[in-house]
């Protein structure tokens, strides 16, 4: 574990990613204090509408005259809520399913994996659009749509890793010693495949945030006046090219956050993924 941390600390790109993620979390927590106009999530100031970035409104104002900077900070809370909850649900469904299906061989396992294959056979955003459209625009429904489309990634990954782990001597030994299946799965297999799960989850966070923003952009996210980033960009379109700041900054926020998770995920994979590690040693 310490070795992993040290190796990761040497990777400047991964550290930059971690920094961006920490920044996002801090911003979300301290939004009410960091915001210059904390009331602007719901308040309008029509006199100030569409003013460019300046000393009063650092990143300009939107069509309602609300401060974009302040709304972005509160938008971070929505992004974190959606991404963390959706991924958590996907992991909670996908990991046990993959473990059980990988551990027991039989028709049931095959069926579960076929179902996840079918989910993977459709682009995630398309499925999420259909679900979100049916359920109606709200933050809970976005979370539901995302977790319903993303769980197969973890099921597939854990399934494959569990299958190969079953033939490892230490797992065979645990089974031979009479450990219960639950014990073998949770105490023996799960810890040894956790690094793959961590890598997948980190990269999955980035993808989920992008998909959530896309849903917001399409009007399928939480309804106004929620300061959701994707929706903000959609709103800005009728005021282009004049109010460039209106579109530019929310997109930048999405980009930085997703970049953070992708950089960290990439660095983690280099350090954690045994297959890649072997390859890099071979090459030296």
């Amino acid at each position, binding site marked *: 574990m310490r070795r992993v941390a040290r190796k990761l600390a040497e990777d400047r*790109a991964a550290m930059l990613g971690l920094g961006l993620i920490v920044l996002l979390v801090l911003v979300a927590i301290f939004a009410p204090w960091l915001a210059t106009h904390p009331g602007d999530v719901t308040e309008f100031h029509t006199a100030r509408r569409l003013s460019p970035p300046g000393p009063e409104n650092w990143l300009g104002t939107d069509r309602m005259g609300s401060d974009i900077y302040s709304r972005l900070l509160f938008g971070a809370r929505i992004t974190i809520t959606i991404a963390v909850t959706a991924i958590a649900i996907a992991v909670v469904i996908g990991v046990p399913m993959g473990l059980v299906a990988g551990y027991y061989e039989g028709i049931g396992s095959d069926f579960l994996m076929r179902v996840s294959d079918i989910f993977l056979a459709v*682009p995630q*955003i*398309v499925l999420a659009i259909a679900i979100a459209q049916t359920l109606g625009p709200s933050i809970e429904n976005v979370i539901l749509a995302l977790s319903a489309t993303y769980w197969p990634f973890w099921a597939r990954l854990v399934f494959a890793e569990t299958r190969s782990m079953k033939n490892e001597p230490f797992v065979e030994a645990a089974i031979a010693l009479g450990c219960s299946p639950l014990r073998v799965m949770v105490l023996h297999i799960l810890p040894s495949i956790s690094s793959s799960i961590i890598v997948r989850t980190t990269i999955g966070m980035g993808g989920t945030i992008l998909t959530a923003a896309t849903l917001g952009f399409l009007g399928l996210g939480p309804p106004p006046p929620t300061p959701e980033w994707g929706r903000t960009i959609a709103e800005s379109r009728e005021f282009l090219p004049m109010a460039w700041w209106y579109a530019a900054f929310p997109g930048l926020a999405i980009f930085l956050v997703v970049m953070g998770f992708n950089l960290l995920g990439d660095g983690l994979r280099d350090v954690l993924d045994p297959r890649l590690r072997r390859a890099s040693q071979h090459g030296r």
Partner: protein
Amino acid sequence: MKTLVLIVNRLIWFFPTVLGLLAIVFFISHVIPADPAAFVAGENATPETIAAIRARLGLDRPLHIQFVRYIQSILEGEMGRSIYTGRPVAEDLLGRLPATLELTFVTIVVASVIGIPLGVVSALRRNSWLDHGLRVVTIAGLAIASFWFAILLQLLFSMRLGITPLSGRIEGWGPEPITGFYLVDALILWDLEILADALHHMVLPVATLALPAAATIVRFTRAGVLNALESNYVLYETAMGYPRRLVIWKYVLRNALIGTVTQIGLIFGILLAGAVVVEAVFDWPGLGLFAVNSILNSDYNAVMGFTLIAGTMFIVVNLVVDIVQGMIDPRETR
């Protein structure tokens, strides 16, 4: 013979997958909503209309009977009517298919032409500044929301600089539709003006879509080349003095590309997903724009139809990729 076995094998798996997709769409459209008929009817429907729709669609019957009827109607090409255009959804979707396919196809070509050489060079100069730079650029390319990137490009090149069209697929009316693919039609009619105009309109949408696609191709090509460079056959070829350029551009590249071909299925998914928002931004009259308009109009049949078509297209592409991969990889015997 071997190829035939391969194709049959893949087709066997194809039908259950499509059936599964139908089941998912059916579940979303018939089981999740409290009253599907109300959805189909739209927002301003009267109770009488809703009741009529319920009876016509058999929504009062048991679910398994509804499912069988649903599959029957889909097989007959019946996806219901769009409440917005008033035409059958299947007809609307088919009419818009060429625009999306053309965009997607050109994007894949552009992304491959850029991505494959960059991936190879990145692997050959491993850990050079170029490699590190490309790593950051590709990660960034996959982190940018395509709708935002599209808007930025529009803002800069169309609104500020005025060197690209703001939106649309062509100026005025398109060429006489033969295939529906403007580039192909323009070539058939040998109308270079239309060809140039169509290409001009493609620049920004293709650039938007090609960014994540090329980033993916660079990453997979790089990994594939590195893998091949570390293989025993490269050691052998080097030991026997095969010219370096031959080793890399023939022996290594072929192996690396087999992996990249597999990724094209995945990239197609990225593009299809990207097309939804990119077409919306550029007013590109394809499936994506249709889907977005349907979402905005709460046109329920149309959204479900889009989901089905997009999903099926994705499955078909992966099927084709599987078969192509089986044909170019001699080791594939299944």
